[in-house]
């Protein structure tokens, strides 16, 4: 690795990290596992003057169940690795979409080092975890000099590597509501198993009376400049019986209003096609989960 020169900090506490960030905000990058940022540094595509490594901060690495009145939820520290999510028995039993998604991120090395918070804050438009987070209706906790705030997943991703976090904020926790009725699946199309998604679809649904779909949330990644919730599609499927005909009729809405990207791995047309095919397959998989 031959990056341009930068100054490296490894703060021991969150306040210390926030102080560094407020000093260097515009010239700083936060390192949270490094599985994306280090590649950019290597190629000199990122040129931060200061690197603030969150790896030395304790207490940002946890997966736990919380209760808020009647409701149950999962809270995960931002520095929780993909491997920890994949291996969590709590998640496997109560929120299997997260381990299922984490298990197809990159390869073993990436999963051992890369973190959930890192993935979300980096906001790669083809990242896997954002699709799951969107479909689960997660909330993300941003901590800054003025305190903390919660951002809904669907408001978090703004564009290419751009999020609702301000340059002075650090993502510290991801909170996911639990539901006993929820069925889910994540499937991605990728040229190789370890690749970013050409198209990735995460589906959460709850069945209602008579085999209809009472609630459905669809997170989509790889298709445009940011991961997104396919809301118009969801509206078309909600309350319906999810048979092949219904899904295929609604499927074009999965990319409705979206500027689909084309590159050497898949043209915009082919991506749209894959999104429709994988939408059906993912709903099928979720229904049978």
């Amino acid at each position, binding site marked *: 690795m*031959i*990056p*341009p*020169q930068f100054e490296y900090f490894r703060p021991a506490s969150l306040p210390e990290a926030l102080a560094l960030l407020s000093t260097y905000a515009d010239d700083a990058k936060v390192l949270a596992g490094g599985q994306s940022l280090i*590649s950019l540094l290597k*190629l*000199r595509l990122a040129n931060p003057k200061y690197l603030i490594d969150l790896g030395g901060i304790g207490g940002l690495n946890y997966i736990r169940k919380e209760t808020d009145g009647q409701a149950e939820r999962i809270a995960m520290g931002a520095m929780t690795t993909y491997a920890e999510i994949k291996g969590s028995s709590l998640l496997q039993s109560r929120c299997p979409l997260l381990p299922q998604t984490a298990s197809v991120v990159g*390869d073993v090395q990436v999963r051992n080092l890369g973190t959930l918070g890192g993935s979300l804050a980096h906001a790669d438009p083809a990242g896997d975890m954002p699709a799951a987070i969107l479909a689960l209706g997660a909330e993300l906790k941003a901590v800054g000099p003025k305190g903390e705030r919660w951002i809904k997943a669907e408001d978090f991703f703004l564009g290419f590597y751009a999020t609702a976090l301000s340059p002075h904020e650090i993502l510290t926790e991801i909170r996911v509501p639990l539901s006993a009725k929820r069925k889910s699946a994540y499937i991605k*199309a990728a*040229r*190789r*198993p*370890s*690749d*970013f998604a050409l198209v990735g679809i995460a589906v959460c649904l709850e069945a209602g009376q008579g085999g209809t779909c009472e609630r459905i949330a669809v997170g989509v990644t790889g298709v445009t400049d940011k991961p997104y919730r396919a809301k118009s599609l969801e509206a078309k499927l909600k309350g319906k019986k999810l048979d092949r005909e219904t899904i295929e009729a609604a499927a074009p809405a999965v990319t409705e209003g979206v500027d689909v990207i084309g590159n*050497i*791995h*898949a*043209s915009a047309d*082919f991506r749209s*096609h*894959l999104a429709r*095919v*994988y939408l059906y397959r993912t709903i099928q998989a979720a229904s049978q989960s």
Partner: protein
Amino acid sequence: MMDFDQLFVTRNWVGKPVRRNEDVRFVKGEGRYVDDLAMDCAQVAILRSIFAHARVKRIDVSRAAAMKGVLAVVTGPEVAGQTKPIAPRAITKPATQFVMASEKVRYVGEPIAAVVAEDRYLAEDALDLIDVDYEPLPAVVRIEDALRADAPLLFDEAASNVLLDDTLEHGDIKRAYQEADLVIKEKFHVHRYSSTPLENWAMIARHDKASDSFVVWANDQQPGRSVVNVCNTLQIPTNRFRLIVPDSGGGFGIKLAIWPYMVILCLLAKKVNKPVKWIQTRREHLLGGTHAPDCQVELELPMKKDGTILGLSMKDYENDGSFVHTAGIYGLIKFATLVGCYNIKATRAQMLSIATNKGPTVQNRGVGKPTMIFVLERAMDIAAKQLGLDPAEIRFRNFVQPEQMPYTTPSGEIYESGNYPECLRKALALSHYEELKKQQAEMRKQGRYLGIGISAGIEPGTSNLGYYYTSRGIPEYTGNAEGAIVGIDYDGNANVIVGSVDTGQGHATTIAQVVSDMLGISPERVSVDNQLDSLISPFLGHSGAYSNKFNDVDLGAVIRATEKIRNKMLTIAAHALQSDVADLKLNNGTIYSAKDNSKKVSFREIAALAYKKILYLPEGLEPGLKEIAYYKNPMAKLPNKENFNVQLTHSNSVHVVAVEVDVETGEIAFRKYVIVHDCGNQVNPAIVDGMTIGSTVHGIGGVLLEEFVYDEDGQLLTTTFMDYMKPVAAGLPQFELGHMYSPCPYTLLGTKSAGEGGAIGSLAAVANAVEDALSPFGVKVTSLPLSPEKVVRAIRETKVI
């Protein structure tokens, strides 16, 4: 082939799957690669062209040169002023190119300046301070662009972008057409891909002021030729250049082209009076670390209705990019496999080397032969379909038969041995071919698309280097040979130095097996120095690791040198034991008399006589126990357009593949992969298996994933492993291997090439399987790679991939 009873005194090691003794060292990080060498070096970074085609109007290095930590800067014009242009090997048109671009850049990534600094970070920073004024020219990217009458010229002096256009006819091709019932015609396109070894190019250069001479450490694959190239280009006598090749982390051919960078490093080393090091980055490697050319091949097979092929006519356009040194060879080398495994009596081949603004091309695993077998084996399937024959049947009808061996092809290539029909029969049996066909029919009823593909290919080895020059007259190099030194040390252990280099093939293990059985000692007592030193090692212009020559001439040289040392030890032993040499035997590090077991002398005692007690040696015998030998393949013909052999051993294999295609997503999944391989006798079957599988995986990468993609301006879009996609273990098939053993009569051990066969046979096998899977949709496969998008588009719209 030698009589093994004469050659070997034991049969404990040759032919056994001996574990590679190199591996522990490599996997523990104890390799000795260029970057591991403990030397205080200044570091080099190279400024590369950002344009595919442009005039360089001005290069201003003043800001970079003034930067703190920068020791020297060199530019293209300065290099051109001090060196001779790169010497072409195969092209016939004049085309002047220097190791660094001077007036004009011809590909994105071409070196135009280099910086030496105290460390690599500073050197890279300094590149940003070099100002280059480019005058962009229109880029020539595709073959058809290069051939247009008004195409911009890569080399004005050539007056054309076609740098070689040669047509060779052998046999009566006109008659083949006259007698044909039909002619299969197809135009194929194979994309640009390459090998990407774990270790990129790496080198250190040191200049010795007192003697004005250079030492270079580099992971070079063909040191014999590189020494000549570097000295010629620098215009220095050979005694002022020494090349040392330590461990090398993979080559596959593309490290044959690293010598131009040695020239640059020598000039820099001289400037700074300190060793200078350049370790190529992966991005640099993908940009300019040499590719296999993309090509377009128009193939015609005049045939009889019964499937008999009467002739083969080919027009081969190779997009050789912009490296004049090796441009043109991809066409010429196809003669090694021009007729594949078949009795084709007449051929016509037109070979065109096209210069474009794509990156440099050089020999890569199989060099044109993967393409040749791809187009031929695709055409066989197309013919079978047209004639209503099973793909296996049309091959059976055309195979060269075992009783025809050794078989000479129309152009003069000699296939030494092999049983091609039996090889296919074995592969069909191993793959349960008939069962697969039944399964295919069953699955189709369920809307699932299984396809079965067969490919039969020749895997040539040991280049007769004269072949390049069939187009240029008398060549500089002809034939093929290698050198070896075998010594016995004070302790009676053997040590071996060879002129070739190892790029991961396990040469040390294999050599130790052969020497052990020749001397009657265990392999632990044979050490093989993998390092080549041009001052010490026994090397020739042919020396290096390429064209699968190891099993032939490298081992040949080792055997000849070992015979010499054995004879000398026997002579000493006979004298010491007062015996006849004819009565002596070797066993377990001793020489004893077969007539009287008590009369014996150990290797150690023989070494003591040879090295120390030299007055007790037989009268007239030289002291010392070190012997050098060179071994030349006996079959190489002189360069002659009418009758020539391109390569000197010919292994063969059959691949039978079953794939399932997801017709909605275009994804291709392997269901079966059978390879039956015949490389004659095997010294180490485990290594042969590993090479067969590794090589096949490379081919699969080429068929499905790997591609250097250029845009219309000649910008390479695949400069990382995210975009240039190597196959990964997940998604690959479980390979089932079968072997045949048809000894080669013309190599000492009956061995033939191993290592490229998988990369050669796999392209057509997978493509044939995919086309078969998609036959209900009427899809024809004429190009690679088979990306999911192309598959889906062909099913839905175009019907052609």
